[in-house]
């Protein structure tokens, strides 16, 4: 039997959609018994969402004002304490998970698996390297704890309707004061979340300016889609960093991905290749984005986008 501890990620109100996909990965581990740990100032509402995920057996809450803004240096010793008796510790491959899980693994004295994309056995997983240009199968040695981040784009979210038990726990490990939260500036927006949205429209360098990038938002609103951007567009200041899709940004798997004015560097393609349908709009018919696109349209985006909006209204 495999006892799996998943470290929840949330914004204080809602559980991140990434955790549902983590649970989906954990369920594929043979004989999995799944526990989700929710650290927070007031973890109760998030814990209820976690308890409703199919496949979750137990939810642990760790309530403490210092977890209002989670810091890996503070969480890691507590996660290590909680992980006693578990065979696996999973987190999502988000900036939160990528910051926390290696710290946990090192404190536990084990190597870590980054971006697990498939479960071959309780100790064997696949993961991408070289921006997804190669896939390796890794095996954890017998008797070692499995610590991994889960490549959420590789797993479908689990359905709700579950009814796991919820229990409060109070780990006592000493936590450091050398790391302090100062501020979080998150763009307030009511658009769908990029990482979990079923539809995403992304813009690239060809948009040419921050002002022009507004047409990406317009098309996204028409489609009820989240907005993404290529690294070039973010570097040029057309879009904020949290919209970056690719090897060093977000890895996503929407039903529909529309790439507008994005040439398709391999670093970008690795972020989108699990999308069910990729649409590419680009004036360069030789652009590498067309090698992965299911539907390609060659032409000037500034002509095509207004036409597309119009056609979608009909």
């Amino acid at each position, binding site marked *: 039997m495999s006892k799996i501890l998943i470290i929840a990620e949330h914004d204080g109100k809602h559980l991140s959609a990434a955790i549902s996909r983590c649970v989906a990965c954990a369920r594929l581990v043979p004989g999995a018994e799944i526990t989700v740990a929710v650290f927070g100032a007031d973890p109760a509402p998030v814990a209820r969402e976690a308890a409703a995920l199919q496949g979750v057996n137990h939810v642990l809450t760790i309530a403490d004002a210092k977890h209002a803004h989670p810091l890996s*240096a503070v969480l890691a010793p507590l996660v290590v304490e909680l992980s006693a008796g578990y065979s696996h510790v999973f987190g999502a491959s988000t*900036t939160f998970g990528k910051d926390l899980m290696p710290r946990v693994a090192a404190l536990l004295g*084990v190597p870590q698996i*980054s971006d697990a994309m498939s479960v071959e056995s309780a100790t064997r997983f696949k993961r991408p390297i070289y921006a997804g240009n190669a896939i390796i199968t890794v095996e954890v040695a017998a008797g070692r704890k499995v610590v991994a981040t889960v490549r959420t784009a590789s797993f479908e979210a689990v359905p709700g309707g579950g009814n796991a038990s919820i229990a409060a726990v109070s780990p006592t490990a000493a936590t450091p004061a050398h790391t302090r939260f*100062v501020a979080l*500036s998150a763009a307030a927006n009511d658009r769908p979340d990029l990482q979990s949205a079923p539809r995403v429209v992304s813009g690239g360098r060809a948009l040419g300016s921050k002002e022009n990038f507004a047409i990406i938002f317009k098309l996204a609103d028409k*489609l009820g889609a989240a907005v993404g951007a290529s690294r070039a567009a973010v570097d040029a200041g057309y879009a904020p960093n949290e919209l970056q899709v690719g090897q060093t940004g977000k890895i996503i798997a929407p039903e529909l991905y529309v790439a507008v004015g994005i040439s398709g560097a391999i670093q970008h393609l690795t972020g989108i290749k699990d999308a069910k349908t990729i649409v590419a709009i680009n004036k360069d018919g030789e652009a590498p984005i067309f090698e992965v696109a299911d539907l390609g349209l060659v032409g000037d985006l500034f002509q095509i986008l207004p036409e597309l909006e119009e056609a979608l209204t009909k």
Partner: protein
Amino acid sequence: MRKILVGIKRVVDYNVRVRVKPDGSGVATDGVKMSVNPFDEIALEEALRLKERGEAAEIVAVSVGPDDAQQQLRTALAMGADRAILVKVTESIEPYTAAQALLAVVRNEKPDIVILGKQAIDDDAAQTGPMLAALWDRPQATFCSKLEVKGGVATIVREVDAGLETIEVDLPCVISADLRLNEPRYVKLPDIMKAKKKPLDVTDLAALGVSIDRGLATVLTEAPKPRAKGVIVKDVGELVDALRKKGLVS
């Protein structure tokens, strides 16, 4: 005055499209152009800027890798690092072992700040920074896009999924550099000549008392499954028809 240690990894160059070996034993690296991991170049650039602002006195570049990683350390010296240390390893290692090797160097060198790339573009693991911080029992500031150091405290802006997070950490600390922290300088020819005279010490894991952790083994390397070939549509009308047929738009 502060000392900064910078992690430098030798990786397949950013522009190379890697090929998986037919026997599944890894990717082909023979005759392939090798470079400094781009994120490590950003890390080094940030250290150089701290020194140029008079906020650091010495920059030590450290690599954990094969003998040939001396080439990448020479590049780091040409960029402006004062000296370099190679921890030689003759087989492939996991970030956990690399972090233990760096910890041993940190114990000898006692830096105030360690800066390294947020991930290496070969294994994409993004583990070494946080693992080193954990083993050292010091703060970590990953995905750094802005750094300010004052007295014994560093203030870091981090690129996180939600936006930008600012944290404050006590020195010594580990910082991992994100893309937009800076734009690394180009190396000039005279600097390459000068770099040949800078000290580069070579040591190895055994000398540092580190043994390779074999808790995680790579058993197979495969090429990814290609996506099915798509179609080029001639206009917006055809595009919307195709999307409607797939049920993707109403």
